[in-house]
């Protein structure tokens, strides 16, 4: 019936068959696409959860899948706790946690509950005044797939303040029979408990089936006291002033409380290399995957790995490098409907990809650092000041082009353009030398 049309289509097909194929270049493109996919890292962004009635940020822990090197002392400490070798993989990148293990500060719990096919076990905890790390294992007789930790809560009669937690949301969709991880609960205020009975509440979604676990447990021994240094010392790097208020050393982590001078001409985005250093140059730096609270605020607390169990002769707080950008460049303005970038850092490296009302894509050129975390923004608002939440964002890095890509999804399309993105990171650095000695702790 439509032979003529079909014939014409066939002619067109034959023409296409004569198209010359540049085989070498096609093979090159295949390899490039393949390598890009292998390199890509997608990080799910902060999920907000409700916790003791307050909103708390749940940061995703970045598991470091590098080879594991441990000290003999650490290996000894761990082998003394049967079945806990898996913990090595979780904490080897954190000197403070490793040293807590070496100094027998890990407390074994071993309390379980079974719901459906799954058994959740609290293996043990590390508790101090700043928080508690709960190590757990999820097990099944059958292979489990698509397991997702939806929510975690910690209960104790004495916890009344808001607290926050970090945990891994998704487990790989590979088929496994058990997996272990840890939950990092931070207490908002330093807390010393007189009642050491806790309850862990955990909601686990396994391929659509939701189970709520409640595991009561008692921590055998109370905490070791934290050491606090009060400095209140204003320092500067390239005329950008900030005050180191206090440094508190807990077994789990070190809190450095800093306030920024509001008169600064630049906005300080990150304390890139803030660290503790002893007289031999040994360093305790930032905690892998976990940033401080209050980023972008004038008052912020930065968490470092702990040196609680060490006894250095001298201890310094040092800063040599800040990530900072001129105040007027610190807000990126985009019209997502017209797909235009209205304000951005003047170096022109940040560029706009496709945008629409639901999503904005950015890319950063000349991104030389392979692992540069291009977590663009922590705050988005529309032209009327309405806060726009971003339920998810992803980023990837193209080493060939030396470009970082960031894709931000918006919770709603009900907003008025243009949108303002407050930068939370940007690879622009200023350098100097700040070195403060930590002396005379308040115990």
């Amino acid at each position, binding site marked *: *019936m*439509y032979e*003529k*049309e*079909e014939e*014409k*289509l*066939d*002619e*067109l*097909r034959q*023409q*296409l*068959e004569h*198209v010359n*194929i*540049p085989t070498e*270049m*096609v*093979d*090159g*493109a*295949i390899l*490039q*696409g*393949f390598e*890009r*996919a*292998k390199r*890509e890292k997608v990080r799910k962004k902060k999920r907000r959860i409700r916790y003791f009635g307050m909103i708390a940020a749940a940061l995703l822990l970045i598991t470091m899948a590098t080879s594991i090197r441990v000290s003999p002392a650490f290996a000894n400490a761990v082998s003394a706790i049967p079945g806990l070798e898996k913990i090595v993989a979780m904490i080897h990148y954190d000197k403070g946690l490793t040293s807590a293990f070496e100094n027998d500060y890990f407390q074994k719990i071993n309390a379980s509950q079974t719901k459906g096919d799954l058994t959740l076990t609290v293996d043990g905890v590390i508790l101090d005044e700043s928080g508690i790390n709960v190590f757990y294992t999820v097990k099944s007789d059958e292979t489990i797939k698509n397991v997702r930790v939806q929510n975690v809560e910690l209960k104790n009669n004495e916890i009344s303040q808001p607290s926050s937690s970090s945990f891994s949301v998704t487990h790989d*969709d590979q088929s496994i029979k058990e997996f272990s991880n840890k939950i990092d609960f931070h207490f908002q205020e330093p807390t010393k408990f007189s009642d050491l009975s806790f309850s862990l509440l955990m909601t686990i979604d396994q391929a659509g089936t939701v189970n709520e676990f409640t595991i009561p447990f008692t921590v055998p021994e109370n905490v070791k006291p934290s050491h606090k240094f009060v400095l209140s010392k204003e320092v500067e790097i390239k005329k950008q002033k900030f005050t180191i208020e206090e440094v508190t050393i807990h077994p789990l982590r070190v809190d450095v409380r800093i306030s920024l001078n509001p008169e600064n001409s630049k906005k300080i985005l990150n304390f890139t290399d803030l660290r503790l250093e002893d007289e031999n140059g040994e360093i305790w730096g930032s905690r892998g995957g976990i940033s401080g609270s209050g980023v972008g605020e004038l008052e912020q607390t930065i968490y470092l790995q702990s040196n609680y169990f060490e006894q250095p002769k001298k201890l310094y707080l040092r800063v040599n490098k800040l990530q900072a950008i001129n105040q007027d460049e610190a807000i990126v303005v985009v019209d997502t409907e017209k797909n235009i970038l209205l304000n951005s850092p003047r170096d022109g490296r940040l560029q706009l990809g*496709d945008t629409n009302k639901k999503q904005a894509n950015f890319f950063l050129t000349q991104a030389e650092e392979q692992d540069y975390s291009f977590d663009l923004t922590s705050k988005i608002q529309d032209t009327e000041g309405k806060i726009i939440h971003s339920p998810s964002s992803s980023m990837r890095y193209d080493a060939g082009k030396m470009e970082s890509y960031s894709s931000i999804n918006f919770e709603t399309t009900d907003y008025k353009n243009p949108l303002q993105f407050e930068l939370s990171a940007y690879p622009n650095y200023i350098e100097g030398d700040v070195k403060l000695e930590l002396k005379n702790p308040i115990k």
Partner: protein
Amino acid sequence: MGDLEIVKRAIAGDDESFLLVMQVNKEGLYRTAFAFLRNEHDALEAMQEVIYRAYKNMHKVKEPSYVKTWLTRIMMNYCQDQLKKKKRFTINETLNEISIDDGTVQLELQEALKKLSEQEQQLVYMKYFQDTKIKDIAVMENIPEGTVKSRLHKILKTLRQHLTEKGEMDHV
């Protein structure tokens, strides 16, 4: 080891098998890219992007024997997105890119194809250019074979309309 076995291993995440599957399908994919994008540069970029997407989504392939159709679909979706974007930025550049010795008939046919919806274009491409069986299209699209047939029928009718309209206008 048969082809299907290789595809299965690729789906399970084996990199070497993935690259083998891409080798087997590269010619078809490149031709698809060229058919839509009409120039080498864009077609090569499409290859890179589609390999990337395929790798990220390989584990979602449910039926190994349909991997070719699956890949072709990713390619067509990508190309159509690219064409939409291009439309926003360039004006009529595409006309110059089509070589003249295609003959007027083919130019007209291509113009007529452009007027089809994206879904219809994909259907035409699968049926007449890739020679995909109606049964396989039905499985991929998750619609009955009868529906595929009636859609193709409707498409041919539309094509005829466009072509005769054009013809009539030329006669005026």
